[in-house]
């Protein structure tokens, strides 16, 4: 997405707190985290031109010559890539329990695989604004499963304060083949696998021009949507948790060799970590699941991610449990995995790995390796300046840039905070304090 397009769009969105302008920016004196798994660097410098990183590293290695644009002295602060959170609901809901405000689940829809999350994104969502203020700059989104094991097609978005949120529409399909998928398919995993096989068979027929509506269970739209899955041009995210289900899903590739799969959930991944690693299939895991929430997660442990990474699996964090707080808690979850490295018998991540698990790795799994979630020349200038260690619970962003544009960090919450800093109504009611 071009910075000037975003700028033009931003000027139209008068009702929103909008990003001001595209800038050339040079950030100096930062404690700099690249996001690629490496340790943070002291005396870091980041140079942004036209919305793109042209340099990020120790100042001594910076290209010579005078830096143009805005200078930001980040002394005493940390700089990281913006957080990239996969599999969120951002832009698809306002209030969870207010169904009319909520596009997360189309329970009565006739369609499954055809559902396209990008069609419903509300770029002005408060949850986008709140997440942006928490340092989240990109995300993928998906609707939840409804009448079918196929939840529909997810999209990649940016969290900029402008109307141009969609980075990539229809970037993956989500299917559920564990306990939830079994319930949706009719009450058993065997039904989920039968539905899966039939759907791919019908999509193949559709692709071959042999579509027979009367002989098909899928709607035409659902069959059409799955064509790019069977051809491997659209990623297939598969939600499974238990070890046996993970093995079963990996085995599907012998029948469908072109499937470009990503495993989602994977609480018992550590039990079959070698098999996942050998398959090369990446994983998006909920890192702090450690309870037998159901019978497919009996082996859940917070060491799951660390053990999978040790076995060579590519793992991003996503689908966060443990509170209704949204993507902005990603750094806390990542930080907890660092904490585990001090617990005897537990497997955690290094600090660099933990940051990568919420920046460069999810970007890479989502198809944006080298472009998002990392501070390297040529990457989009999604940059966050923090008042402390980004993974520490006491830290927060002080500046957020998306495509090099400094973003507003205000939202409904900050306005309430400002109004209620005191309870003084001696002159007028609080309703006049705005």
């Amino acid at each position, binding site marked *: 997405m071009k910075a000037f397009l975003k700028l033009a769009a931003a000027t139209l969105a008068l009702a929103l707190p909008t990003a001001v302008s595209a800038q050339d920016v040079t950030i100096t004196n930062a404690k700099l985290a690249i996001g690629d798994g490496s340790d943070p660097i002291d005396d870091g410098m980041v140079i942004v031109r036209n919305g793109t990183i042209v340099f990020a590293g120790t100042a001594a290695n910076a290209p010579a010559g005078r830096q143009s644009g805005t200078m930001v002295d980040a002394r005493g602060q940390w700089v990281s890539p913006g957080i990239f959170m996969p599999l969120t609901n951002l832009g698809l809901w306002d209030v969870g329990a207010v169904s009319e405000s909520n596009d997360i689940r189309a329970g009565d829809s006739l369609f499954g695989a055809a559902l396209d999350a990008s069609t419903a994104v509300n770029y002005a969502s408060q949850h986008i604004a709140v997440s942006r203020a928490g340092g989240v700059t990109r995300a993928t989104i998906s609707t939840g499963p409804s009448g079918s094991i196929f939840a529909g097609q997810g999209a990649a978005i940016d969290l900029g304060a402008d109307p141009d949120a969609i980075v990539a529409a229809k970037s993956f399909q989500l299917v559920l083949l564990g306990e939830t998928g079994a319930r949706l398919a009719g009450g058993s995993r065997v039904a989920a696998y039968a539905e899966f096989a039939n759907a791919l068979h019908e999509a193949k027929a559709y692709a071959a021009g042999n579509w027979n509506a009367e002989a098909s269970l899928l709607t035409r739209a659902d069959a059409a949507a799955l064509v790019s899955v069977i051809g491997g041009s659209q990623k297939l995210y598969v939600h499974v948790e238990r070890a046996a289900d993970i093995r079963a899903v990996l085995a599907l590739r012998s029948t469908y060799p072109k499937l470009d799969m990503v495993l989602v959930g994977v609480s018992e991944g550590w039990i079959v970590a070698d098999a996942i690693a050998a398959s090369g299939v990446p994983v998006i895991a909920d890192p702090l699941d450690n309870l037998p929430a159901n019978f497919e997660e009996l082996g859940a442990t917070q060491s799951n991610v660390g053990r999978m990474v040790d076995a060579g699996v590519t793992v991003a964090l996503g689908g966060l449990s443990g509170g209704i707080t949204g993507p902005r808690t990603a750094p806390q979850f990542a930080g*907890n995995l660092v904490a585990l490295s001090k617990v005897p018998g537990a497997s955690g991540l290094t600090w660099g790995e933990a940051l990568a698990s919420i920046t460069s790795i999810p970007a890479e799994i989502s198809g944006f390796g080298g472009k998002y979630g990392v501070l390297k020349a040529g990457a989009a200038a999604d940059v966050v300046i923090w008042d402390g260690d980004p993974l520490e619970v006491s830290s927060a962003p002080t500046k957020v840039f998306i495509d090099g544009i400094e973003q507003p960090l205000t939202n409904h*919450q900050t306005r309430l905070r400002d109004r209620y800093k005191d309870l003084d109504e001696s002159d007028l009611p609080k309703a006049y304090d705005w």
Partner: protein
Amino acid sequence: MRYRALTILGGAVALAACSASGQSKPASASDAPAPQAETPYASTYQAYPSAETLIIPVSVFDGAGGGWDNGWVHMKDGKIAAVGGPTSRPPEVDNVVDGTGKVVTPGIIDIHSHLGDYPTPSVQAHADGNEATSPTTPEVWAEHSIWPQDPGFSRAMANGGITSLQILPGSANLMGGRTVTLKNVPSRTVQGMKFPGAPHGMKMACGENPKRVYGGKGRMPSTRMGNFAVNRQTWIDAQQYADGDRKNRDLANETLAGVLDGEIQIHNHCYRADEMALVIDMAKEFGYTVSTFHHAVESYKIGDLLRENDVCSAVWADWYGFKMESYDGIPENAALIQQAGACVVIHSDDENGIQRLNQEAAKAQAAGKRIGIDISDADVISWITLNAAKAMGIDDQTGSLTAGKMADVVLWNGDPLSVYSRPEKVWVDGALLYDANDPKRRPVSDFELGQPGEGDVK
């Protein structure tokens, strides 16, 4: 902070004492109701064997607002014997734990949990927290739903340092039933977990849940005004019962009379500021007090009112938006309540969040700091220790590292307000029940035996 309100109710005297003390007694013997028989289902908890232990040198947060480095904590006979700082002389003890680089706090207390009554696995067969068949069920007791084998108790100890917790009924009902306070010590029976001497609470719920659940069934309440009408009529009927001879056993009214007597504390699920204000007036109308508003995401709008009425707010750090009445939740809530001089407790209401109350408290502290409200680390630790204990009426026994109190103690492997720290050792009544360095010194529930990951780090 304590105050007493005397309310004349139809000739009987009901005395309501400070919500947070739990120490209230009937006003006079002549007016007091006939004492109930010994509370049934009594605690059978007994402390496990403990060794006299000295943790030294160690940084200390005492839970009562004190904090110092180069200190020590002495546990003996299951109690806190003494604590000291760099200039005070420690006792001679054989069993010394080196706390260098580590931090000691009181055992963490969660005032709002559903471990045991909504245990994992979270299957329908385990959904025992809401008796959602009537909008008022003060007759049910959470302890009769608790499954002591819930694996969540062990995670709460190992990762969260939880040593005491209150288990509540859910919030489907206006009056959900009696709460129970547990020691986080595994037992074959719930009686074996019950915190000795802890008062019962009664769960109440404002707002959306009761009106949705019962309105959806085509019965009252279907509105917020319906919520209050049903509550008020129930209190009126309870007063009549309480003013009588109480000889006809009536489980619902026994609980309500216990509230009116000041022996059972009200824990009121309530999100919105305006509704909390109405509940405070309802409590005055009927002569009881509210210990704590739970999930009070809008307390920051009425910190003054909460201070004046001495009601605690049990809050998350940053949950918001999941329902209409949580729409105005902000991360600065706890800090703004504290700034107003009202009582803050950080709670979980969640089997995952209970494992990280320390981190939630730290987030809330930091949000305050960013708007200029500086709250010391030691005071923040009190949000998850002594303040919770006060609001639950167990502060005379636990919640701070005070000589004579239960030796409920957590040794953290670093700053407990950092994401990078975890409990290293947890003692309950002086007994070492979790040790990160000893793979066998951690509880494994019956449910987990022979299953994948039995005894794993969790």
